[in-house]
């Protein structure tokens, strides 16, 4: 028996947590409406704003770029793109090529920044010498470069391609480590007044739906897997959540909805941030994490020279 969409066409997707079935056309319509609903519900952007989209060339940020581009004109939003070259041999080149190609096709200006030029070393070199896991340096430095570049571009907000799975994983990871401050900071939409507003328009869409949208619309994106991903804490949490979701549809939504209620009711408002004594960027510490790691890397590199 062929499964049908409500419109009568053959279904390509069964959204188990709601019981709906979608053909390709109705899925695209649902997906794009969900992104725009998320943007306006969480007040992620407003008419006349300049939005910097952080794109890696992977499926999530490629989908983000295309959907934002499709709504930017009619909503009076100016779209720019930023991509970060971390310097990961064999992984990053397809992503950078994809980012350039998509931006060129859509006519979105792209700014490329690299660890090599801004930090002084590629992630491959850093990970050989550093005392932390590669994902620690990569995450801290990438966020820093995106923040400073978005500011240079005069952006009102920085949009990233984080999906529902990313959000549920991050929430669970912070619960597991008991890190309530980071748990609170996940709420990028409100953000600190001293940092650029960070928004995640795909954060209420499961990763599987993001991939389905990319495939149905034949988007060009990089399939490469980061060679350092296995060293992180995220992979076992992701596997656990996917196994749970397969047996109990909707748990990823439940985790995110529960976190929203907790942050509203029980966590205090984020305190005012000070300025890093080295770089002047907003931080809750005397020296920000990016400067702390940069100093550590400089010492490690000088020891080996």
């Amino acid at each position, binding site marked *: 028996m062929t499964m049908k969409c409500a419109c009568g066409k053959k279904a390509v997707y069964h959204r188990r947590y709601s019981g709906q079935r979608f053909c390709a056309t109705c899925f695209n319509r649902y997906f794009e409406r969900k992104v725009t609903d998320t943007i306006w519900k969480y007040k992620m952007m407003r008419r006349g704003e300049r939005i910097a989209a952080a794109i890696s060339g992977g499926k*999530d940020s490629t989908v983000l770029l295309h959907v934002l581009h499709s709504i930017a004109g009619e909503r009076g939003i100016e779209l720019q793109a930023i991509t970060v070259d971390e310097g990961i041999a064999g992984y990053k080149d397809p992503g950078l090529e994809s980012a350039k190609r998509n931006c060129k096709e859509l006519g979105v200006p792209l700014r490329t920044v690299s660890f090599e030029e801004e930090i002084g070393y590629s992630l491959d070199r850093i990970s050989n010498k550093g005392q932390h896991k590669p994902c620690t340096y990569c995450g801290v430095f990438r966020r820093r470069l995106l923040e400073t570049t978005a500011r240079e571009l005069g952006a009102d907000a920085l949009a990233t391609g984080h999906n529902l799975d990313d959000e549920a994983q991050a929430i669970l990871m912070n619960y597991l480590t008991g890190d309530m401050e980071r748990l609170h900071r996940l709420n990028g939409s409100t953000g600190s007044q001293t940092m650029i507003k960070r928004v995640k328009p795909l954060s209420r869409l499961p990763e599987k739906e993001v991939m389905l949208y990319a495939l149905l619309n034949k988007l060009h994106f990089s399939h490469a897997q980061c060679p350092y991903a296995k060293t992180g804490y995220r992979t076992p949490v992701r596997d656990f959540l996917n196994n749970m979701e397969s047996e109990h549809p909707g748990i990823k939504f439940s985790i995110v909805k529960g976190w929203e209620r907790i942050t509203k009711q029980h966590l205090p408002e984020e305190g005012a941030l000070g300025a890093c004594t080295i770089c002047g960027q907003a931080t809750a510490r005397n020296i920000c994490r990016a400067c702390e790691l940069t100093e550590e890397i400089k010492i490690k590199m000088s020891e080996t020279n």
Partner: protein
Amino acid sequence: MKVNVNNREIHLAGREATVEELLKQLNVARETVIVVVNREISPEETELADGDEVRLLPVVSGG
């Protein structure tokens, strides 16, 4: 019943099976793949037939 999955022949018990049953047999979580049956993206409840070509496209990419 025999189906071809990512260029590998897989035997399924009985005469009837769905994509969901195939994924269970392969121990693949349904959240981690998009399923293409005979070149069409298909929901997991799709019934398979002997000789079907199945491709499992991983959902996770990037970092």
